[in-house]
């Protein structure tokens, strides 16, 4: 999956609207969004994520970096 596709999926999951900066725009991951994120990471990358790790995601790029790191 390309980064552009990942960003598109994440923006839909987190309902990010308009122009947002993947490094600057703060993201809010509530309990429902976190389920979507778990499903997205599990289905597409076979990656498991904890609540604590999700709490560390402050911008979209944190999620992309997390995926890259886990994919090795």
């Amino acid at each position: 999956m390309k980064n552009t596709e990942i960003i598109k999926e994440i923006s839909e999951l987190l309902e990010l609207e308009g122009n947002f900066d993947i490094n600057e725009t703060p993201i809010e991951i509530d309990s429902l969004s976190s389920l979507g994120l778990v499903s997205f990471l599990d289905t597409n990358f076979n990656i498991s994520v904890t609540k604590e790790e999700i709490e560390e995601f402050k911008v979209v790029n944190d999620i992309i970096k997390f995926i890259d790191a886990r994919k090795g």
Partner: protein
Amino acid sequence: MIEFNNIKILGISSCVPENLMDLKSIFKNESETRLKKTSKVTGIESIRIAGSDTTASDLCIKSAEHLFEKLNFDKNEIDSIVFVSQTRDYVMPQTSFVIRKKLGLNNDTICFDLPLGCTGFIQGLFQSYSLLQNKKIKNVLLLCGDTMTKYLNKEDFATRSVFGDGGSSCIISSTENKFATFFDIKSAEEKPDSLMMKSDKLFMDGFEVFKFVSKYVPRSIKENLKYLNQNFDDFENVIFHQANDFIIKFLNKALKIDETKSPTVLNGLGNTGPASIPLALTEKFFKVKKGHTFLCGFGVGLSYANCVVNLSDTEILKTIIYNEKH
């Protein structure tokens, strides 16, 4: 998997309370955005809520009376009752004794209560099939129901927006036909405290429950299909425990299941615990194809259970409504 032969489900019936509440009425102070987002994920815009005097056994009894009538089944032929519920009428005595009396069944009917939830229907089937291994037992009445809305914390949005009330009944009988049925029942290594009753109120950590489901359920189903040397093309119906729309969609996607075989009946009902699988069948009675069916339950325990059953000779009745003035 554990195999049983020469047993069939004769009929299935369900009953829900007449009170249908939409989320807007339940959560008057919540924003419309939050309610819409929740409904989009859970598939639930309204749920059935039992009246203050209506119990899970009331809903089950009503559905059983309906089943006896529609199947023209002589209730004196029932040899055992298995009542599956997390919201039994009493801690003591067993509710199944009360049900036996209210239904007017013979006093030699063997009565059991099973305090099980989301895997309750499959575990109840397993207990019923096990009882039928004794040649003197010919017919078992399996009743599954919860009135979980009585045990929800008014401040807990996550549980109040999902759980509903319902009851069901099945007659399971010995048969000359082969009708092989398979069960696989397990519990996870994770702690059970992400879904439990604490001080008479239901507590649920949805994140941990979903992680448990995603970790164990697809793998167990794949193992079962491999054991049976079958795939989902071989099944007419795949019925999941109706936890929420999101989990069912996740499982359909993870297991590449055709969604037309895997109904969701959450809207207008909610998660009804042990009654959710029979309710999925009776709500979609007109669509359910009679034949090879895969059933899967998961949740409280944390437990998960699968069953492969043939519904070719099963009468699936339309869900009925419980009149509170009954």
